[in-house]
């Protein structure tokens, strides 16, 4: 692997902002944190696994209310009328984030295959990583102030 995790996190943050700006709404970003993990509870989790020179995952986390706002911004459906579209929208936004990140990594010389997205919706969801992994967390804020998180997990090289 030629990229440091800091460089990869910068690519992931740029990819996320690009996807949201084109498909939903502009985001404010905090500096990505190498070693960071999604520690707090959330209501919606979209995840895509990748494999190749390294294996790991890209995960999108938000509250259910924020996921509804994202869905509304993507589809034009009023927030009050969003229902079954939300899991599909979060799966697709996760797919676009991971896919755009994958394309940037390929341009930098690292090739991955990625899975189709899976979305989990619940209450106070938390994740815990077992084994030896490297992590990084990108934190964003939507125009209304709702936080969104994108986490990168890489298995030990």
């Amino acid at each position, binding site marked *: 692997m030629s990229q440091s995790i800091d460089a990869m996190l910068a690519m992931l943050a740029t990819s996320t902002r690009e996807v949201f700006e084109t498909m939903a709404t502009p985001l404010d970003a905090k500096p990505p944190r190498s070693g960071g993990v999604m520690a707090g509870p959330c209501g919606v989790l979209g995840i895509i696994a990748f494999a190749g020179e390294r294996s790991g995952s890209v995960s999108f986390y938000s509250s259910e209310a924020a996921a509804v706002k994202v869905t509304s911004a993507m589809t034009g459906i009023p927030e009050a009328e969003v229902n079954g*579209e939300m899991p599909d929208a979060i799966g697709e936004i996760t797919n676009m984030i991971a896919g755009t990140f994958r394309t940037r990594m*390929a341009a930098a010389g690292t090739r991955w295959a990625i899975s189709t997205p899976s979305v989990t919706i619940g209450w106070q969801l938390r994740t815990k990583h077992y084994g030896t992994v490297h992590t990084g967390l990108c934190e964003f804020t939507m125009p209304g102030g709702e936080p969104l998180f994108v986490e990168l997990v890489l298995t030990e090289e």
Partner: protein
Amino acid sequence: MRFLVVDDSAMMRRMIIKALNGVGHDDVKEAGNGKEGLDALAQGGIDMILTDWNMPQMSGLEFVKALRALDGTRTTPVLMVTTNVSPDDLAEAKTAGISDYVSKPFTSDVLKEKIEKVLRG
């Protein structure tokens, strides 16, 4: 002119159909994966196909290879709408038989331009 939109995401199908409607194309059929896409093509009358790449059951790439092997769809324009846009990906998709591609994320203007470009041949 009749379009076939193949994507496992109902929301993406809705967004693509909305973009097609916005440029005056109202005759659109839908399929949720490559297998359903082949079933729709078997009924005939499709003039252009827009397909995702990463789908369960039958991927967009397998779908394009399969439809290019059929007499009725050997030359039907195919636009792939995908996040898989590295040079290696695009070479593989072109070998399979796509006419052009749209990179996700996309705006409706970009989608419109690509559809018009493919239709011009």
